[in-house]
């Protein structure tokens, strides 16, 4: 029933009406201003689309405050500078929810070819990202793989690659999109192309993979929350209620849960008690409600990093079930090995635990370590530290190598780099970017650099890192420095297949040349060498004869400016051109990048995931152009496999190529 209005009363007329209007007139501007403000405010309110509360999201893992975790946002008010540099770090963006602000790849009607045989089609619907593709989680017959369309909800990585995760449609289960996005190249490529793995061998892309595996090191306090062990029964019949305290590596990953700290420090008297604490010995007590890794001893502080930067496994399934329900039990400051098995093949290759892992996974060691047990993949630097004498043989905490000897998790105020630059250089402190990193302990070396290195003081051969931490680890389509501090030897190249530091720069010299110099200079025993080690320069030898891992490292070294300056570049083209046809996509990618760094090749047009015929055609044309270029004859040393006329010795190249180590290699970065 609606109330009916009566006739509108006549407005008052005469003097009274004029008085009212006159009274309003002076206030008219203010009234107009108020009306305009009101309209603006109303528009803002109406156009604001409220975010869906995290608790109401059902198709992906969600963030929750639990177990004393309060998220990094709680830290900002009291620690603005630390928050700022963490916020700019790649730790924070290790995992992100896919939103228009975080997605950096193109989703506008993009087609990515050759993902499980058919193109993946990407699209955007408002603020949502969608993909249509052949189901990578399908475990039936390959020819029956169904075509699915799913929403992309999460992103892993933000420095070199974006790996995208889609909602499987079953609980909070996620699976990986069959293509990844290379950030520098701004290119979508099949997921298999960004991992160094045997060609033709499919990568596992299993439903629930993120929930069960990735969550451990790509989030803070993740709880897998499968009702039964992962893959113990069909994925669709399991209940998955995965939660995290925070996506990405938050403050509490390294400092431990912060609730007690936050609550205790609401009291200003307590805070100022710590601020004004000036003990006589200069060592501040610190707040017992939070862990400060830099105040831990070098072993425990490095374990804070090692909780993720190591090759580790649960001791048994009971431990896995505990972590599944309650999150990983390790807390900063704890002994890491109390709650997990950290692989260290240099000392525990025959241990019962290691033996058991190798029985169930024969490539458990080979996929991550060199034959002598040195770590060979990136992201596992704690394993490298464990085997470094500066750590394992140190006797005093002040002279023990730790992660914090070189890296810093918060950019100090006196560091003039931008936060972006600081993060981009792996958070290495300014003091540790040169020899000073080592001179912290090896002070006497500062006065005898040339006597020790036998290189000029300004030579890259006199930089500690280049000899003792060479680029022999692989990951993310590039090499990184070994984090096992070691001394170069020809033996490691001959018996282990690991490039030695000398020849990573002197690519145009033989391993025998290196062996002789190391023997002369340091008394390092020379190993038994075969004819090719004596007669063929290391660069060509490793690129032609080595396994895929060695080829990737060598191709990368050819693009390394110190090596280019030392070895010259005019002879590299044939070898890198040959690598453009390598069966491993990762090797092809790196070879093309190095080739583009050579003079005259900056604009090389080459797609490492293009069809083979197209790639071969480019390689052939490169070789023809190189032969026709007089500069290609600049180097005529026989060890570079050129004859007296400077032309390639194809027969020797072919022989070495035929001797190539073709054992399949999957590097588990």
């Amino acid at each position, binding site marked *: 029933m609606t109330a009916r209005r009566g006739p509108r009363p006549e407005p008052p007329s005469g003097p009274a009406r004029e008085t009212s209007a006159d009274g309003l007139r002076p206030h008219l501007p203010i009234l107009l201003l108020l009306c305009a403000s009101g309209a603006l405010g109303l528009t803002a309110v109406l156009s604001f689309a409220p975010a869906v509360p995290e608790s109401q999201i059902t198709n992906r893992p969600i963030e929750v405050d639990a177990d004393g975790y309060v998220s990094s946002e709680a830290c900002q*008010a009291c620690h603005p500078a630390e928050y700022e540099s963490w916020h700019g770090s790649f730790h924070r963006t290790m995992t992100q929810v896919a939103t228009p602000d975080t997605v950096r790849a193109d989703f506008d009607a993009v087609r990515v070819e050759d993902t499980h045989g058919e193109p993946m089609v990407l699209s955007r619907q408002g603020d949502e990202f969608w993909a249509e593709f052949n189901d990578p989680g399908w475990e039936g017959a390959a020819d029956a793989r169904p075509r699915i369309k799913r929403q992309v909800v999460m992103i892993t990585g933000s420095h070199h690659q974006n790996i995208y995760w889609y909602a499987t449609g079953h609980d909070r289960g996620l699976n990986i999109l069959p293509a990844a996005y290379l950030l520098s190249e701004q290119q979508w490529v099949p997921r298999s192309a960004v991992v160094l793995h045997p060609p033709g061998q499919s990568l596992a892309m299993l439903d629930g993979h993120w929930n069960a595996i990735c969550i451990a090191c790509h989030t803070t306090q993740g709880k897998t929350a499968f009702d039964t062990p992962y893959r113990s029964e069909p994925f669709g019949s399991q209940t998955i209620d995965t939660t995290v305290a925070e996506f990405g590596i938050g403050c509490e990953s390294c400092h431990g849960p912060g609730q007690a700290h936050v609550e205790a420090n609401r009291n200003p008297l307590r*805070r100022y008690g710590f601020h004004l604490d000036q003990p006589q010995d200069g060592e501040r007590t610190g707040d017992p409600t939070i862990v400060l890794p830099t105040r831990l001893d070098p072993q425990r502080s490095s374990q804070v990093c090692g909780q993720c930067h190591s090759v580790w496994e649960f001791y048994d399934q009971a431990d896995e079930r505990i972590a599944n329900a309650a999150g990983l039990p390790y807390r900063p400051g704890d002994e890491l090995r109390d709650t997990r098995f950290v692989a260290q093949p240099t000392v525990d290759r025959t241990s019962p635990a290691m033996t058991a892992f190798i029985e169930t996974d024969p490539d458990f060691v080979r996929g991550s370590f060199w034959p002598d047990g040195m770590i060979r993949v990136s992201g596992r630097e704690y394993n490298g530290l464990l085997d470094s004498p500066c750590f394992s043989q140190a006797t005093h905490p002040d002279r023990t190598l730790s992660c914090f000897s070189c890296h810093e998790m918060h950019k100090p*105020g006196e560091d003039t780099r931008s936060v972006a630059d600081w993060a981009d250089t792996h958070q290495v402190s300014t003091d540790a970017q040169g020899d000073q990193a080592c001179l912290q302990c090896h002070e006497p070396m500062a006065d005898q650099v040339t006597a020790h290195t036998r290189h000029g003081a300004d030579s890259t051969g006199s930089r500690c890192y280049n000899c003792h931490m060479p680029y022999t680890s692989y990951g993310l389509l590039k090499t990184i420095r070994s984090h096992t501090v070691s001394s170069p030897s020809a033996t490691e190249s001959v018996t282990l297949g690991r490039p030695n530091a000398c020849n990573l720069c002197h690519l145009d010299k033989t391993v025998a040349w290196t062996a002789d110099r190391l023997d002369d200079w340091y008394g390092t025993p020379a190993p038994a060498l075969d004819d090719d080690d004596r007669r063929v320069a290391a660069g060509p030898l490793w690129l032609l004869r080595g396994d895929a891992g060695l080829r990737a490292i060598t191709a990368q070294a050819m693009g390394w400016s110190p090596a280019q300056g030392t070895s010259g570049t005019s002879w590299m083209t044939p070898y890198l051109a040959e690598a453009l046809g390598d069966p491993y996509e990762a090797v092809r990618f790196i070879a093309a990048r190095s080739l583009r760094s050579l003079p005259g090749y900056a604009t090389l047009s080459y797609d490492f995931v293009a069809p083979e015929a197209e790639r071969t055609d480019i390689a052939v044309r490169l070789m023809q152009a190189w032969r026709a270029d007089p500069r290609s004859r600049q180097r005529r040393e026989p060890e570079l496999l050129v004859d007296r006329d400077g032309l390639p010795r194809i027969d020797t190249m072919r022989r070495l190529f035929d001797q190539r180590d073709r054992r399949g290699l999957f590097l588990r970065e």
Partner: protein
Amino acid sequence: MLGFLLLGLGLELLHGFKVGVYLDVQNETRRLMWTLAHAHGALLGLVHIAFALSLPSLPSLDALGRARISWCLIGATVLLPGGFFAGGLRVYGGDPGLGIVLAPIGGTSLLIAVFLAARASGSAETPRGTGGRRD
């Protein structure tokens, strides 16, 4: 008031020359404190002027009352922005230095001044409002 306006000029210079001790993120608290010092100081200067201009409207306020309010305002003008400024000299992350304890004392002083002025204003208006004063 001149002093605090000059402080504002100083802060603008710190901005102009991008001085890290004021602008860097680790000095965010200092920046906040000194901005508050400038703003409170300048505004309290205006309050002083407003109080002086309103004295003719407060005939019931005797000399002692004026002096009380005036001293309270002076106290507030020194302690409130002074506390903010001193609090920004040394900062502890998100916490200002100990000088900040002056700010609440100055704030209290300002409250007293406002209360006394409001009471005087009320007693001055009462006769007209109630028609109590009849000749």
